[in-house]
């Protein structure tokens, strides 16, 4: 008697998303899939795997380039430990990034700045995807807050040259690099700004609507706020 349809579908997709089916090693018929040519299942598994990896590399192209000779081993380990659970390009990329971060807890990242490159690529993708959250009503006129759609990233290396020049030409300098990733009004895509540490800390503190009068700030603070608002980093409640 044929198994229920969902049970058969589960068998198929679990097999197809397995490292054994994708990379080889699944010799005979998969359990529950008797009567289907294993070679054809392997073709389907590789199609599906290729689509998933296309999505991830589209978000993390520089990171993949920097993985170099360790790329295949990392990808295989990722496939084995993190089967696909979503169609989303960003979610799959975030999952791969989290996997790399967990690897780097046990092995030194190579090159040492690859973690910052990956974090910046993910931040750019998130900023581009995020429509921002609506303003709550409890803000008062004149209150300010960090734009919900920007991301703050404190890097150990200044990796921006990799994004500007390409990884083969850039040599990131190891130094504190407080970065802001934002999608300013009218911009074609996410922009990356380096800001002074004090400004980074201010933006980090402005998590919610804040009365600027209560802040211990410099005399030209109003000009600074206007500038940050024009760049899409701060919102000012009207």
């Amino acid at each position, binding site marked *: 008697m044929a198994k229920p349809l969902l049970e*058969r579908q589960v068998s198929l997709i679990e097999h197809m998303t397995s490292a054994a089916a994708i990379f080889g090693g699944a010799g005979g018929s998969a359990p529950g899939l008797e009567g289907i040519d294993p070679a054809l299942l392997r073709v389907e598994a590789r199609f599906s795997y290729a689509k*998933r990896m296309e999505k991830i590399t589209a978000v993390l192209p520089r990171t993949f380039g920097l993985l170099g000779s360790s790329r295949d081993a990392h990808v295989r380990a990722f496939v084995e430990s993190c089967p696909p659970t979503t169609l989303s390009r960003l979610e799959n990329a975030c999952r791969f990034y989290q996997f790399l971060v967990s690897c780097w807890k046990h092995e030194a990242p190579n090159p040492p700045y690859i973690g910052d490159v990956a974090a910046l690529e993910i931040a750019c993708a998130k900023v581009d995807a995020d429509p921002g959250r609506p303003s709550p009503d409890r803000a008062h006129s004149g209150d300010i807050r960090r734009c919900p759609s920007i991301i703050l990233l404190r890097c150990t290396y200044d990796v921006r040259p990799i994004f500007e020049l390409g990884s083969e030409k850039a040599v990131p300098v190891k130094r504190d690099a407080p970065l802001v990733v934002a999608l300013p009004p009218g911009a074609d895509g996410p922009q990356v700004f380096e800001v002074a540490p004090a400004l980074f800390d201010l933006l980090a503190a402005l998590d919610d609507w804040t009365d600027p009068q209560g802040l211990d700030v410099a005399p030209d603070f109003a000009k600074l706020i206007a500038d940050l608002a024009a760049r899409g980093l701060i919102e000012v409640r009207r």
Partner: protein
Amino acid sequence: MGGQLPAVGIGFRAAIADWTRENLDRFDALEITVDHCLAGSTSLRAAIFDLVGRVPLTAHGVGLSLGTDVPLDLAYLDEVAEVVERLRAPAYSEHLAFTRVPGRETAALMPLPKTEAVAEQIIAKVRTVQSRVPFPFLLENITYVFEWPDSKMSDADFLNLICCETGAGLLLDVENVYLNATNHGFDPHAFIDALRPGLVREVHMAGGVTIRDESLAKPLLADSHSHPVPDAALDLLEYTLARHTPSVIILERDDRLEAGDEILDDIARIRARVASRAEPFPESHGRACPGHPRLAC
């Protein structure tokens, strides 16, 4: 006033958004992936909705997984309905396939066992879609690498049964018919002949690659959407147009998108085949494209 020829266009892709806008006058319509409107980047969503009113748009989904044997995501369907309305699209299409099971997603379209029992399950699902998305619903035939051993019906009979019971139309992927017929050894013309009259509302065309692997019994044609449409698929399109009256033909291209000349050449080749079948279609609705009263700006 005579009937109209089918509109010819391409699937809108983010990577060539600027190029598409620059060449908008070369296309009668663009196909929008509904899921890009729901989960795409801010810039992609803006680019898509900027097209509304500039060119007729059709709405095609990839995220439904109609064939997974679990209840449909009604919240997702409600979002789809809003998108189709906003795009001013004449219909909503999805694949007769499944892509996921609870907790696992393949991003690849998997075939269903072609049995009457499975058809009954799909019929119920289609009716649910039709109750949540108040636009004509079209099912697309997919290409498949393997068949379930218990499949008893032909592709055409399976599609006919589901579409005729529900009133859903068919988004006929002619390239997929060509691939499946070649890979699985059936007559593609007999498939086209077997489709019920009036079923085919839209058409997809594409070009793929041949996979050669020593583990395979024979080379496999794959639907990669990466290369020019083969002449054999265009021949099959012409055969289809002699028997069916789709209102729009969409060229699908997902790879090697930098080859803009190839894409435009494919559009020209499709138009040439359409023109060679230029017996006017029956007048319908008095609008730009018969069968699709909304397929106009």
